[in-house]
C-alpha cells in the first residue's frame, strides 16, 4: 500500500515539475455559501492546474505539548500528529472522486480515510461508493485540523466514537434548500466493528479499536452491514442540527457456517449542532453521543454496555483585521467543555455507580492569519475517574500547535 501511494505521488509530483508554470495553478477556496456538515469532505481548499481534472490538497498538524498528571509528566513532547493529502477529480459530468489519505505520527499509521466515487443523479439522490466516512455526529466528517481552534480532537470524538471512522460501503446522500432552510440526508451500508470493541487491552468498551483492524475494508467481522444514517437541517439564522444513527451486529458470531456466539448489536445515536450568533460572530458547535453495546451478561462489567459523552466548543473572534501583514487575520478566544462516560451503569455487586468517566475544560487562544491556517495555544484541565470511582486523576498542561491546509 505504502509503495502504491508513493508511486502515485511521485508521478503527480513529476507531472507538476515538468510543466511548472505557476500562473496555471489555481487555488479553489473553501465554499462559503450555505453548507451542511455533510459538505465537509468537499469544503476544503484544493489546488488545481489548468484544465487538469485532478485537484490536490491537504493539511498538516504539528504540536508541542507539556501535560502532567498528578505530578507525573512525560515532559516536552513534539508531535507531528498528522499530514493528510486530498486528491479530487471530476471524472465526468456529475461523477466525482475524492480521496483523503492520512499519515499519522510521522508515518507510523497510514490510512485511506476517504476514497469514494460520487455519482449525482439528482441533488437529492447521489450515490456514494468506496471508503466512506460514516456520518455519525458531526466531527467524524468534519475533522480537518485547520477548522478547529484546539490542538486535540474532542475526547468523545476519538475515545467514544472513532474519529475518522471510515469503512468500505455504499450509500445515498442528498440535500435541498428553500429560502433560509437547508435539509440533507445520508444513508450508508458499510463494513463495521468487530469483537475487539469489548475485548481489548484498554479494559473498556472502546469502539475506536476497530480502526486498528485493516481487514475491515475487505471483510466485515460480523458479515452484517453497519447501517449509518443522518438527517440534518439548517436555518441560516438558527444554525444546523444533525441527528444520526449507526448500528449493526458487530461480533463474529459464526465462522465457516458454524455458530460461535449470539449475535450482538451496537447502536449509536448522536446529535450535533452548530451556529454562529449574528453580530458578535460567536461560533458554537458541539455533539453528544449515546452508545449501546450488547455485552454478554457473564462477561465482565469493565466492558460497559452503555456509554455517552460529548463536547461543546465556543469560539469568539476578538480581533479581525490586518495583523503582521496578513490582511484578513483573526484572533479568537475559545473554550471547550467535554465529558465522557465509558461505562454508564451500576455495579451488580453493590448497586453503586460505575465511574470510568472524564471531564475536561480547555480554554484556548487561536490566531488565524487566514482561514486556512491556525496557530493555537490551549490549556487543558482534566479529571478522570477509574472504573471504581476512586480519587480522580488530575491532568493539566499547555499545548501549542499549528495546523494548515496546503
Amino acid at each position, binding site marked *: 500500500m505504502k509503495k502504491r501511494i508513493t508511486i502515485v505521488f511521485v508521478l503527480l509530483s513529476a507531472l507538476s515539475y515538468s510543466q511548472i508554470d505557476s500562473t496555471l495553478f489555481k487555488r479553489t477556496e473553501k465554499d462559503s455559501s450555505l453548507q451542511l456538515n455533510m459538505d465537509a469532505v468537499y469544503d476544503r481548499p484544493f489546488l488545481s492546474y489548468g484544465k487538469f481534472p485532478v485537484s490536490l490538497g491537504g493539511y498538516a498538524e504539528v504540536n508541542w505539548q507539556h501535560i502532567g*498528571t498528578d505530578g507525573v509528566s512525560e515532559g516536552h513532547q513534539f508531535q507531528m500528529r498528522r499530514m493528510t493529502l486530498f486528491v479530487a477529480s471530476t471524472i465526468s459530468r456529475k461523477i466525482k472522486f475524492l480521496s483523503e489519505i492520512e499519515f499519522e505520527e510521522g508515518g507510523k499509521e497510514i490510512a485511506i480515510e476517504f476514497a469514494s466515487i460520487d455519482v449525482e443523479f439528482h441533488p437529492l439522490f447521489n450515490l456514494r461508493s468506496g471508503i466512506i466516512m460514516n456520518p455519525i455526529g458531526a466531527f467524524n466528517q468534519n475533522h480537518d485540523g485547520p477548522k478547529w481552534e484546539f490542538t486535540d480532537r474532542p475526547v468523545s470524538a476519538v475515545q467514544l466514537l472513532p474519529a475518522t471512522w471510515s469503512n468500505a460501503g455504499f450509500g445515498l446522500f442528498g440535500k435541498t434548500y428553500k429560502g433560509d432552510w437547508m435539509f440533507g440526508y445520508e444513508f450508508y451500508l458499510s463494513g463495521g466493528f468487530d*469483537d475487539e470493541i469489548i475485548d481489548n*487491552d484498554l479494559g473498556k468498551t472502546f469502539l475506536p479499536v476497530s480502526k486498528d483492524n485493516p481487514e475491515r475494508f475487505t471483510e466485515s467481522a460480523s458479515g452484517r452491514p453497519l447501517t449509518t444514517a443522518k438527517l440534518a437541517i439548517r436555518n441560516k439564522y438558527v444554525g444546523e442540527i444533525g441527528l444520526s444513527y449507526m448500528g449493526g451486529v458487530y461480533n463474529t458470531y459464526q465462522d465457516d457456517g458454524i455458530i460461535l456466539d449470539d449475535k450482538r448489536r451496537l447502536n449509536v445515536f448522536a446529535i450535533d449542532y452548530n451556529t454562529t450568533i449574528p453580530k458578535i460572530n460567536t461560533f458554537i458547535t458541539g455533539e453528544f453521543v449515546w452508545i449501546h453495546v450488547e455485552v*454478554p451478561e*457473564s462477561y465482565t462489567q469493565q466492558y460497559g454496555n452503555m456509554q455517552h459523552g460529548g463536547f461543546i466548543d465556543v469560539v469568539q473572534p476578538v480581533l479581525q483585521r490586518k495583523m503582521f501583514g496578513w490582511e484578513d487575520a483573526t484572533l479568537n478566544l475559545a473554550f471547550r467543555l467535554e465529558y465522557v462516560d465509558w461505562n454508564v451503569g451500576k455495579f451488580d455487586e453493590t448497586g453503586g455507580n460505575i465511574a470510568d468517566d472524564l471531564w475536561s475544560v480547555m480554554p484556548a487562544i487561536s490566531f488565524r492569519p487566514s482561514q486556512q491556517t491556525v496557530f493555537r495555544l490551549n490549556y487543558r484541565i482534566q479529571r478522570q475517574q477509574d472504573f471504581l470511582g476512586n480519587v480522580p486523576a488530575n491532568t493539566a498542561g499547555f499545548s501549542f500547535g499549528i495546523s494548515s491546509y496546503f
Partner: protein
Amino acid sequence: MRSLILIVSTVIILILIIQSCEKFQPAAPSEDEILDGPIEGLTNAENIQFLNGDRAFSEVYTSSKGLGPLFVTNSCVSCHSGDGKGHPFSTLTRFGQSDTSGNQFLTMGGPQLQHRAIPGYEPESIPEGASFSRFTPPAVTGLGYLQYVTDADILEMADPNDMDNDGVSGVPNWMPLKDFLQPSTNAISQNGKYIHRFGKKASAYDLLDQTVGAYNQDMGITSTFSPIDTYSGLSIDPEVSDKDVRDVVFYLETLKAPIQRNKDDPEVVQGKNLFVDINCAACHKPTLTTGYSPIDKLSNKTFHPYTDLLLHDMGSNLDDGYTEGAAQTYEWRTPPLWGLGLSPTTQGGQYFLMHDGRANTIEEAILMHGGEAQSSKLLYENLAEQEKNALIKFLESL
C-alpha cells in the same frame, strides 16, 4: 513597529509558558496519601525491573492474549487498583474445602470460582454441596517486607497453646511447597511442610506462589509454573512469560510500605495506646523485622505492618465453612492494618473490610471480631465514645 513589538511579546509569552509549564500542572499527591511507588533507595537496575513489573501488573489480558476462557478479572490492577484493597466487583469466591483433608472439588472447578467468561463460553457456578467463602483482594503494598520476615520470628509470635493465657493463640499454616517453589533462606521446615504466610488463610507461600496462582485462577492465564488451563484441566502453552511473572513478583516485593499519617496527633497517639491496651496488638503486631533479602533495601529492616502472619480463631460469625491448607474454617490470617485508612481511595470511596468486604466502617469491622479477638472486642465496646473515636482515628492514620 507595533507588529514587531507584538511578535516579540508573543514569542516571549510562549517562551515563558514553555519554561514554566510545570508550574501549571497538578502537583503530585504526598507520599503518605498514596499506596503505590517503590521503596526508597533501589538501584537503577532495580527501578527498571520495578517499572517492568508495574507495566506487567497493569497489562489487560484479552482472549487473544489468553484471558480465560473463564476468569474473575482481566488484569492484576483491576483487583488491586492503586495497589490497594479491592472492591466487591473483584471479590473472589473459593469453594470446596471444609476441613484440613484437602479440597474435594478440585475436579469440579475448585478451588476458585471463575464466575466470568469470554463471549461464547459459560462461566462456572458453585457445585452443589460445596462450602465457599468470598475474598476481597488485599492491598499489595509492603509485601516484600512481609515476605522476608523469618520463619523463626513467625514461630516466636505463635502461641498455639496460649501459654501466656491472654486468650490469643496464633498458629502458622504449615503446607507442602508447590513444585515450582523453593524454600526461602529464612525458611524452617516441619515434616516436609513450610510456613505459608500470604492470603486470607495464609495458604500462599511467597509472592511467586501468590502471583502464579492469581494469573492462573483469577485470569485463566497459564505459565510455565502453572501450565494447567482452568477451563480444560489440561496443560497448554504458557500465556505469560517467566520474565513477566518474575517482574510482577519483583514489583510486589519492592512496593513501598504504607506511610502513617498524623502520627503525632495527640488523638492518634491516644488511639495507638488504646490499641495496645485492649490487646489488639496481640495479633496485629505493630512492628516486625525482616531477615536476609536478596534485595538489599529489604534486608534486616524494621517495619510496622500490624500483623503476625499467623492464623487465629475468629469465631463462628466469621466461619464460612471453607478453608485452605492446614487452617480451620474459623481461622483467618491476621491481615496487616497498614494502609487501612487509605482503603477508600482504592475501593471507590468506601470501606469494604474483613475478608469478604462485609464491613463498611472500621467500627463495624471491629465489632465483627470474635473467637480469640472476642475479649478485645468487648474491651472496645466498653471504651468511652471519645476513646473509641481516638482508636478509630489511629486506625485511619495507618
